[in-house]
């Protein structure tokens, strides 16, 4: 009997073209859009020499000038294209956008930039490193004056790493946040299934609910059969999205794929529980419930960094509790931590919190569904 109910509900879901589009096709379209929009932004191949000006009154040996000249991205590609000028002209060039920064040399070199960006960050890193190296050199030379002839400078000024570090770090940082958030968002999107099933089973919400309520079948039994069918369909959509991102878009999910799938499945259960809870707690008609749930999911997606990657960090630093009660963020953060951290502590912590939230939401839904008579229909 239960299996027959499950199969029939499964048929309903699979034949619902609208649901199938939003569950299966839309996430893939969105992932493709993300991929094409962000893919080329942080590749090292696209790095272009940074135009800068250098202002210095030192006539003879100027180690900073030398370091700037020798800095290379790769063989034959200089990191900087340098214009030598006075400070006034350098400032004018910066204002006019001819250069991206200028450096005033001397004992304490200063960096002047007009905007914030990757090239400006590279400049700052370069200069910070130069200061650090200069200080180190000064200390070493105080003890070993011959060190300068033994390749000390070459060893300390490995400039190409600035570009590699910036490029390598930026790519996973920004891009993966979007893809992880998309995956997490898709897991929590299961909330829509939870809501639909709650509406379908309540006599005051739908005529089908009324028909079911007068039948001799236990409501919870039917609800669980329906939820199992919804979960099956949703799991299919998650696996398809994972396959697409991993195998077609070649998004790097690291080597913990099984844990990623487990995260997605638990996230989907949490999503279904969220939908059911909204369906139970909001005592309005179905369209209002649907609108409220959509708003909750979208807000969860936004706060987890789906629309604006830095939002994840803003929440983590300013209001961490919000991160812990946002299922989208928990799933996204778990995926992120599986990629970045060698240990699984964060995975277990996030999954425990998500599990707890799911149990709480499940309990609320159960309490609501147990109600068998209604004040009005």
């Amino acid at each position: 009997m239960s299996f027959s109910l499950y199969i029939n509900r499964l048929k309903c879901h699979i034949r619902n073209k609208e649901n199938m589009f939003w569950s299966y096709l839309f996430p893939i379209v969105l992932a493709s859009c993300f991929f094409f929009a962000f893919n080329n932004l942080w590749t090292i191949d696209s790095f272009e020499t940074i135009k800068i000006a250098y202002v210095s009154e030192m006539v003879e040996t100027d180690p900073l000038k030398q370091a700037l000249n020798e800095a290379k991205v790769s063989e034959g590609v200089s990191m900087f294209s340098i214009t030598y000028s006075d400070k006034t002209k350098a400032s004018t060039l910066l204002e006019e956008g001819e250069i991206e920064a200028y450096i005033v040399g001397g004992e304490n070199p200063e960096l002047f930039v007009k905007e914030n960006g990757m090239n400006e960050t590279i400049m700052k890193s370069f200069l910070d490193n130069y200061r650090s190296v200069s200080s180190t050199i000064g200390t070493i030379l105080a003890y070993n004056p011959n060190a300068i002839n033994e390749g000390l400078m070459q060893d300390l000024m490995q400039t190409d790493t600035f570009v590699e570090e910036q490029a390598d770090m930026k790519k996973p940082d920004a891009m993966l946040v979007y893809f992880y958030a998309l995956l997490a968002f898709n897991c929590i999107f299961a909330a829509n299934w939870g809501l639909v099933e709650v509406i379908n089973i309540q006599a005051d919400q739908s005529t089908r609910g009324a028909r079911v309520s007068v039948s001799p079948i236990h409501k919870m039994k039917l609800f669980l059969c329906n939820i199992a069918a919804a979960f099956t369909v949703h799991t299919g959509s998650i696996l398809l999205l994972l396959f697409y991102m991993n195998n077609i878009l070649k998004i790097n999910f690291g080597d913990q794929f099984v844990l990623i799938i487990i995260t997605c499945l638990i996230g989907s259960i949490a999503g279904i529980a969220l939908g059911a809870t909204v369906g139970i707690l909001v005592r309005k008609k179905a369209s209002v419930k649907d609108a409220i749930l959509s708003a909750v999911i979208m807000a969860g997606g936004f706060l987890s960094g789906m629309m604006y990657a830095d939002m994840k960090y803003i929440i983590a630093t300013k209001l961490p509790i919000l991160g812990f009660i946002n299922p989208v963020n928990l799933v996204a953060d778990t995926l992120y931590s599986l990629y970045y951290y060698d240990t699984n502590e964060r995975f277990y912590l996030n999954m425990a919190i998500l599990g707890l939230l799911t149990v709480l939401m499940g309990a609320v839904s159960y309490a609501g569904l147990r109600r068998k008579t209604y004040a009005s229909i």
Partner: protein
Amino acid sequence: MIVKVEGLVKRYDKLVALDYLDLEVKEGEIFGLLGPNGSGKTTAINCILSLLKYDKGTIEVFDKPMGPDEYKLKKDIGLIMQNVAVFDELTVYENISYFCSLYIKDKKEVKRLTEEAIEFVSLDDYKKFYPKKLSGGLLRRLNIACGIVHKPKLIILDEPTVAVDPQSRNKILEGIKKLNEDGATIIYTSHYMEEVEQICSKIAIIDKGKVIAQGTKDELKSMISVGEKITIEAYQVNDLQLNTIKNLPNIYSVEYRENQLEIKTGRGNNNLVTILEYMAEQKISFGRVITELPTLNDVFLEITGKELRD
């Protein structure tokens, strides 16, 4: 007793939807619950089915107190609502089979009952159709099939013919009679008095949450003073003549509009003869003459002072 409702009160804040409602439905009856929209028919049904909480009163079904957990009682009840309650994504066959499987565990039995239900509502040619492809009438028949597929002893139909074409309506009414002949007790709510008159063996007229009259259709009609309604196509009848007709023996009311003389008389013989004799005497020319027995609308009108269709 199949259904016994005593002193049922249901309030929505200040609005009293059911006002100490009493009903008794005996085995084998087609019990009509007749009343205008908003009179409390659907509320009464929802209370009987334990879908709605009520403030006072008792409800017994199959001589046992009805409650939301009375699964044994629910097994023998079928519900057909005004709004179609089927799954758009399942075919006609799958829908009927699905709702049957809520009641019956055995697969073979589900299959047999599903096929019987399809045959009963004459949807054999539409088994593989999805509900969206069905006309309004066919959709209602599917709705009925989903409600009766498990062969319930008590079938509750809540305005099943609203917005249904005459052909499908007749089919539905015939089907209800057949179900009754096969042993099911029927509770049929409607605001269409013709339907109720046509099929119900017992009728309760309900208004403002109260049963205002109850009995067979003949018993109900005998409760009112009007025995006959005579309509005569008559020309140039003056006020004096109208007054005289009104004062003839056994005449309750006379109305004259657009050459139609409408006269309500009490029970008795020769009412028409007396009127026609007077008209001949007064040389009033007349054409068609129609006589009708009182309808349930007349019953409702006399008791409440308003038309059933208001």
